[in-house]
């Protein structure tokens, strides 16, 4: 949702007809990540304090961070800083926080992405376009077994969606 009390915080809630364990695997295991995150994969050993890297196809690193919380299957958090795009990489690290809850047989996944540094963060704008498509893709993959057709590169799409 884009209407928040704090305009510098991005919140997105999605409900997935799946289990906590499967949603957790979707967020942390590359066999799933590659199917909904624009062909990117994550390199990380998921230990607290470990380095986190989001790799694009071809070995490029888009974003980096550090693991802040790893409490399967309920809470996952890491810092998130762009290291690739000129217009974004000047900004310092932000924070990604996933909370997974079971609600009446399905999973409520809440993403809070915050700690953006400025009142006019380009990174915030970029991730605000990216997360809804990424997490829609996670839901589709877990519910249908098939990836959501790749939407980021489409000509009608907001260019911001290419940022993760």
């Amino acid at each position: 949702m884009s209407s928040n009390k704090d305009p510098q915080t991005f919140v997105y809630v999605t409900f997935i007809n799946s289990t906590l364990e499967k949603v957790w695997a979707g967020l942390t295991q590359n066999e799933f990540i590659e199917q909904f995150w624009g062909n990117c994969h994550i390199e990380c050993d998921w230990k607290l304090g470990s380095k986190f890297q989001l790799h694009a196809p071809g070995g490029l690193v888009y974003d980096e961070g550090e693991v802040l919380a790893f409490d399967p299957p309920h809470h996952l958090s890491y810092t998130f800083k762009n290291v690739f795009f000129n217009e974004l990489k000047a900004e310092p690290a932000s924070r990604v926080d996933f909370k997974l809850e079971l609600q009446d047989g399905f999973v409520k996944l809440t993403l809070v992405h915050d700690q953006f540094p400025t009142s006019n963060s380009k990174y915030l704008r970029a991730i605000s376009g990216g997360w809804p498509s990424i997490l829609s893709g996670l839901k589709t993959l877990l519910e249908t077994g098939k990836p959501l057709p790749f939407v980021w590169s489409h000509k009608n799409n907001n260019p911001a969606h290419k940022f993760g």
Partner: protein
Amino acid sequence: MNKTPDTVYVTYIAARPQKVWDALTQGEITQQYFFGRRIESDWKVGGRVVYWQADGTLDVSGEILECDPPRKLRFTWTVEWVTELKSLPPCIVTYQIDDLGEAVRLTVIEEHPSFLEEKWLEGGRRGWPIILCSLKSFVETGKPLPDLIEHGKPDALKAS
């Protein structure tokens, strides 16, 4: 008094625009994913649109401001059972479907022309994600999220 910021929810659905349009505008489909609510309208600009609750009582009524199938539907939104809101200018809800080829982007915007207290916004912020996730499940898998009618109940939509 300043206007309240809009509430916006965006989801991507693996479907053609017409299928998502049908899911938004056909009562027999909405009642499966929208807390049992059934939409009804003649879909003419200036015409009336209503959502009926599962037990047949009127939940929401409004007026069609824009109807451009299968791309955009915009209408006023008055929650019939919240008397505090009835004296205010009505909320406006927009459903927008952008065709991305093999998928669509569905954007729902809830606009309030005048300032509203936080408590009236909470329902929409809580309600839209679950309604639209259920719509997405229904369109992609043929099944909505389970047990929505039971656990959702009108509270989730109080501020819409």
